[in-house]
């Protein structure tokens, strides 16, 4: 049985009411941060250990020279090929049966390896507990057959959740309706993410949204090359040493001279 789920965020329907942001905090019992106005409705300024989802506000100028206001609900993309899961030393970050990336905080050791690994800049460290904290797509709610808090709260239907094929079809249909630069974001990289966007502009227009996210080459070299190489190289040396011993033999001193006065007899 395939229980893989996809959360679809249709940005063309988002009104930036931030209901999802509040619902997320409420369900996950996260405190608010004290922030200062920096000239934007965006608040807090970035994702935090206690802010797993954030509406980003961005002003752009369109072709006709008119101001356009872009809203984007930022948060964990729940990659299929998740860099954070690849680098986690203790398997604290893991994929659940729904395909989302959850974290077992009992296993997390606060090593912070996942922070630079993530192509979306999602994992954050809670300094008080020294544990990584990030969106788990309301895993406990999914287990109870309930939608994530953000989905439940969304008044315009911009955030919906469902099985992979349904949501992909829905996203593609919506993009066709919108036309122009609208596109589906999330199905073309890291083996597909479990969060899908319908973007109204090209991906590169959005701030903090990589146009072509991927598991960094350095992570592939580290985990797919050097990690096995460590054992292979050491194993080859041990095997080689044994072969050397039984074929060539040890380099034994020609004479054992410990006689009186240290002179050779």
């Amino acid at each position, binding site marked *: 049985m395939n229980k893989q789920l996809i959360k679809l965020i249709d940005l063309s329907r988002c009104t930036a009411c931030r209901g999802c942001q509040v619902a997320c905090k409420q369900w996950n019992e996260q405190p608010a941060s004290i922030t200062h106005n920096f000239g934007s409705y965006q608040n807090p300024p970035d994702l935090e250990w206690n802010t797993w989802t954030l509406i980003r506000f961005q002003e752009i100028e369109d072709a006709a020279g008119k101001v356009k206001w872009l809203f984007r609900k930022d948060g964990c993309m729940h990659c299929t090929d998740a860099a954070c899961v690849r*680098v986690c*030393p*203790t*398997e604290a970050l893991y994929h659940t049966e729904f395909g989302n990336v959850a974290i077992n905080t009992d*296993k997390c*050791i*606060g*090593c*912070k*390896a996942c*922070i*630079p*690994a993530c192509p979306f*800049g999602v994992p954050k460290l809670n300094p008080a507990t*020294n544990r990584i904290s990030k969106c788990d797509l309301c895993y406990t709610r999914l287990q109870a057959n309930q939608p994530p808090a953000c989905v439940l709260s969304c008044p315009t239907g911009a955030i919906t959740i469902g099985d992979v094929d349904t949501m992909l079809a829905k996203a593609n249909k919506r993009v066709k309706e919108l036309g122009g630069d609208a596109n589906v974001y999330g199905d073309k990289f890291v083996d597909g993410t479990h969060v899908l966007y319908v973007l109204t502009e090209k991906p590169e227009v959005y701030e903090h949204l990589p146009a072509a996210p991927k598991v*960094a080459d*350095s*992570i592939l*070299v*580290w985990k797919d090359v*050097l*990690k096995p*190489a*460590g*054992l292979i*190289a*050491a194993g*080859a*040396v*041990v095997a080689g*040493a044994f072969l*050397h*011993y039984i074929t*060539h033999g*040890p*380099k*034994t*001193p*020609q*004479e*054992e*001279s*410990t*006689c*009186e*006065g*240290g*002179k*050779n007899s």
Partner: protein
Amino acid sequence: MKKGMIKATGPFERVVHWCVALSCLFLCITGMAMMYHSLNVIGTLVGGMENLKVLHNYCGIFFAVSLLFTILMWWREAGLFSFPEDMQWIMAAGGYLWKVEKMPEVGKYNPGQKMFFLAVAIFGIVMVASGLIIWFPDGYTVDTLRLMYVLHALGFVVIFAFFFVHLYLVTIGAPGSAPAMFTGWVTRGWVKTQHPKWLKEMEKDGTLIVYGEGKYRK
């Protein structure tokens, strides 16, 4: 101690050697416990993986200090190659792998030992630097941090492989070597076989210390 044994190392050398060796070994084991998920079980021995991480980090500081002493102590003797004899030795793989008619005479350290020293020194510095940045990542860019993880893994691969070469040679590969790092005294036969040029140099310079002679006379 038997009469006629030759003094190869002093107590300071041996203490520094074991400080760097044991801390390096501990770092390899705890590092592997974090790199290979199946070895996470090692964390149980110290009360969990978080404790293991903390021990790994602080042991790294001990290793860094030991490495500093190691480099200051040995770089002149073991860090510099002398040509052309060291090149000859390397081309002949030290006479370890195939039959070589005429081997250049080896001084206090053979080029293999020099390579091991340089590997530990260079990659040891890489490990300390990358390890500190991974430990305190604030202020570094994502690209720098990603590079540090690769370098840390690369250093492990090199040092861990070299460790087994070292272990083989000082135990069964070149018998008689190990006492140099335990008691400090080795047999004349061993020095003559492994480091003949060094023996000649010490005899010429009058720095040869033989048990049962001079101040070591009973």
